[in-house]
């Protein structure tokens, strides 16, 4: 019994491994391109998985298709165009810059600019508020003399000198 369990455990990793499809590449560069392409192409059936990651039948079909096209010597942009022609721009994890995606690409910069403007406005306002409050506190200060008072003070000092 123990022997059987041992054999079973030996087979287990092999059977798990066989569920992953294996591809033979002619060189490492092609393998790298395959990895990159399946990483950047999104599985049309799944909401947020790339071809590399997904176990759905359609993802495995598309992986095969990418592999086939690589073997046939197509370049990356041809493969991407092939997928977009069939499944639309949904399959691109890096969407192209066009009218529909301007907000996507440039929106964050716009928000940063708006943020900077708001911060500048708030800080400017605060600065102005503090200066006005300084002025007002000065005018309320008991040591501050009105023109009448300072004239009287001058008179008093002058009479004092003359004595």
């Amino acid at each position, binding site marked *: 019994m123990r022997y059987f369990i041992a054999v079973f455990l030996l087979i287990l990793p092999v059977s798990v491994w066989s569920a992953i499809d294996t591809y033979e590449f002619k060189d490492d560069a092609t393998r790298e391109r395959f990895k990159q392409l399946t990483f950047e192409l999104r599985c*049309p059936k799944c909401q947020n998985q790339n071809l590399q990651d997904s176990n759905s039948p359609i993802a495995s079909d598309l992986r095969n298709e990418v592999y086939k096209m690589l073997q046939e010597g197509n370049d990356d942009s041809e493969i991407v165009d092939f997928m977009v022609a069939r499944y639309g721009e949904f399959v691109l994890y890096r969407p192209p810059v066009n009218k529909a995606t301007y907000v996507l690409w440039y929106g964050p910069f716009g928000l940063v600019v708006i943020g900077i403007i708001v911060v500048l406005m708030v800080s400017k306002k605060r600065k102005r508020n503090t200066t006005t409050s300084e002025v007002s506190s000065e005018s309320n200060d008991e040591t501050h003399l009105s023109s009448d008072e300072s004239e009287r003070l001058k008179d008093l000092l002058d009479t004092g000198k003359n004595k």
Partner: protein
Amino acid sequence: MRRFILFVPLVIFVGIGVFLWKGLQLDPTELPSALLNKPLPAFQLSALSDPERQLTEADFKGEPALVNVWATWCPSCKQEHAQLNRIKAEGYKVIGINYKDDRQKADIWLKKYLNPYALNVFDNEGSLGLDLGVYGAPETYVIDAEGIIRYKHVGVVDEKVWGQLKGIIDQLKSGNKVLAQ
């Protein structure tokens, strides 16, 4: 002016709220077809009923029709099958693409649940499906008489969906060129 500024957060909140609320109503699994207003992809595949008979995209042309991608392994296809039979009974043409399926199983299925299809393409490798951008059966296309794809519906065709598709087909039949959104 001061007063107005107090309402800015409320306005922003309402704006974001409306935006997100609309987002909740959208179905993210529904992709716009990349093939809208484009001709059917070229293919040559055998007919489901007869392995000897070769069908091409030319066989789809002639009158506006529904093109239904189905398979016996797909539970939703079974769900919509009765509706497809009713569509045929109403006098509309339905073309089937038997997608990644087994010829024998498909034959039995059509005998058991009746055959609404004017013709059926046997696409067991899914090559036509790939060219059409099929990502899950059932999918239903509306094509016009020249074989140009005018609409795509992903999912079950029920009474409500058929009402919509019928409107498009009727418009095509009356000669109006509708451009699907």
